[in-house]
């Protein structure tokens, strides 16, 4: 299953990237095809294209602040969780998707 995700935290120095790394790793282990965009102090990186989003069955927002360019995700099913969830228990986020 194809999944896209966005991570963003208030300072954008550490947690944005830690969460991205965690989601990528756990997602792959569980057999997902995942691409994670980070919205941190360096701005948007690994940006999700229109194509990425249209291909994905679901978008995960692990964010503590508003997602930039949110309109890209109109019409896509979104699961939004606090960023800390991605660090604490990423498996349960993916479990929700499979349900």
């Amino acid at each position, binding site marked *: 299953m194809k999944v896209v995700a966005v991570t963003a935290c*208030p300072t954008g120095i550490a*947690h944005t990237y*830690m969460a991205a790394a965690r989601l990528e790793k756990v997602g792959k282990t569980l057999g997902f095809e995942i691409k994670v965009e980070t919205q941190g102090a360096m701005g948007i990186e690994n940006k999700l294209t229109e194509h990425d989003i249209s291909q994905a069955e679901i978008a995960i927002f692990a964010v503590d602040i508003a997602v930039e360019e949110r309109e890209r995700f109109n019409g896509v099913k979104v699961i939004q969780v606090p960023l800390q969830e991605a660090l604490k228990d990423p498996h349960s986020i993916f479990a929700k998707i499979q349900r």
Partner: protein
Amino acid sequence: MTQRSGTSLEFDFVCTLSDGLHARPASQLAEVAIEFASECLLTNLRTGSVASLKSVLAILALDIRQGDRCVAQIRGTDEQAAHAALLRFVEQVLPTCDVPLAVSHTATASNKLPRTLQTAGVKGCFGTPVSAGIGQGKIVPVSGMALPRELKGRAAADPRSELAQIKRAIAAVRGRIQEKLAHPQSPTETAVLQADLAIASDVSLAQKLAEHVMQGKSAGEAIMAAGEYFINLLRHSESEYIRERALDIEEICLHLLQEIYGVDLKTAAIELREPSVVLAETLAPQQLLGLDRQWLKALVLEHSGATSHVVILARSLGIPTLVGVKNARSVLQPGQEVVVDAMRGFIVPQSSPAVRKFYEREQKTLELRRDLLPAQTTGPAITTDGKTLEVAANASSYEEVALAFEKGADGIGLFRTEMAYLQRQRPPSEEEQFAVYAEVARAAAGRPVIIRTFDLGGDKAAPYLNLTAEGNPFLGYRGVRIYAEHHELLQAQLRAILRASAYGQVRVMAPMISSLDEVLQFKAAISQAKQELLRKGVAFHSDVPVGIMIEVPSSAFILDQLCAEVDFFSLGTNDLNQYFLAADRDNPKTAELSDVLHPGFLRFLKRIVEEIRGAGKWVGMCGEMAAEIRHLPLLIGLGLDEISLPAAGIPAMKRMVSRLSSAECERSLAKILACRDKAEIEELLERAQPPRSAQPLLSPELVLLGSQSKNKEEAMQEIVDAFYIAGRTEDRQRLEEALWSREAVYATGLGYGFAAPHCKSDAVLADSIGVLRLNHAIDWGSVDTKPVNMIILIAMRESQNSRHMKVFSKLARKLMNDEFRGHLLAVENAHEMATFLAQQLEISLH
């Protein structure tokens, strides 16, 4: 509610005032009662104490708080009328007579203790640090009521004449307050004066005074005893406001003593016998000089601005000093042992174990920092594009001069001479002055020394000058203006300075010049002194350069004329700014207005420097503006030849010069001069600071392994201290707070026993990574609830777009990797840790 009980009329009421029955309403209540002959008593049913309604002091001592039920009892010939009047007052006037008092915040958002002290429940009071350092000692309040020695134990005349003296004094003090009240005042001032008047007229006070005199005390001792009695009563009140009223009583008692003995008790010498923290509303420079420096560990002033003379003096003597400590005298108790932290800006009780631990650690940190930071910078300070800026020192004694040269000063930009004139009955002799100036000139070993002739008057008075008190001393008879009257004094000093010129490169400078005529007279005086020396055949250098202070704005508009007459100029920015902006630098309400970054003031400086340099003359700056390292881009941009500052700041200032480009500073200044407000200027000034790329992201000093910290607060403090030791922050408090405010969003414990606290703050001087590995795991509020023993701290500057974000994001991602974390836990020493991280993050350690 009214009833007759026994022989008196009674009524009861509940105090509804939010600040309780404090001085202002109490004085109004007493005013009503005092009109009647009947005995009027008030009982606070909560405490059971009783007091006369005719005495403000007695009412205050009842400590009536909001919600307290009270009973008034009236008995006597006019009891009906008295009862009616008091009841009317209590029912109709009292509940609304009081505007709520402005709450005095001792702790505001910016006033915070370090976390380790906060969590230990330590309470502090806060102020602005103006002379850095840490001092410990017992509180000695200086306005405290100490009877001068010469009045102590003075034999009492017969009680009747002592009492008569007291009565006359009371009448005189009351008269003076009433006189002030007759002139229009603000409502608050009026209320305060009325409360003072009520205290001066208080029957309990008069009674107590009479009691003590009848026991055989002198008027002075009776005033002391009665004062102390009431002060003690009030000091134990729950309400801070009432505790503060103790100061009013003190004030009135001091007035009474002054009235009787004619001495100004505030300037009476205070004896210190043990390590002491002197506490005062404000101090005159003479008072400070009168204190025994062996025991003076710190100074706490309720008022006084950062540039007042007493503060400048404290700084030059190296006395840790806090100013603007609100209500210090009512919050801090005499004899209480405290630590004055004039690095962070607070006072805390020494009795707390957390405080002791904190300062033991602090001492180690400071020692480590001293060892690590290069102590001095010799050689000229040259900008990256090859311009030299002389970095000189301000000094007022030989010791300070010696210290300045130890710190690498290029000269003495301002040698103040007035201190030698203070605190004595006769002026210093020519010989005495020559000895000092010659010693200074010799110590300078060829470097220039600018000696400023005495700047007396204003707040710097000496008895032999016969100066009269002035309503506005800063606009008054001071500096060069008193030279005509004290011609001989000036001649003696000029001869001493000229003679010292035989021993080094001495220059002479006049203070407070506002007209060409003053310059011509000053030069004539120098010629006369030279003639005298020639006549006597005493050696001196014939071409001693003559300069003037630019501190009165008028002088800036006749620079063409002045440049034709003098060799050099020095900008005295303290006075220049206060005269230019018409804002008193010592008044807390206007202190903000007297800002050297005012766009108008900066443009003014620019014009002055341009014109002087255009005429080919030399110009320096010796005001406080030159002492602040942040201002350096402006100072270089202005094109000054020299800056002169306290010795301690010289090494850092010289290093900073060598990192700035004068061309860029000029461009920054041009942009700043076009700014419309302070915020814009601050922002541009921040951008004008030199790049901090010199420091690598990580170095072994920032890696601490085997930490003994026992909780999150201690751990955070330990890393921030390491940053301070390594010179990566000068403001630990602000850096810690930035980290804690990030923790407040949610804790940065990422699980697996790791935490990654981080912040964006300009309190860190260079982007940095710090590492702390703990011997015992501590709680960090981690997502997996497990304790933490590995802390990776990321501190990033806010104002500069970081080139290091890529490294930080890489580090964050790697922290999610088991193998990487395993390695961090396994490395054996700091060096290995730094090397491993540098290699993983692809960064350099140099």
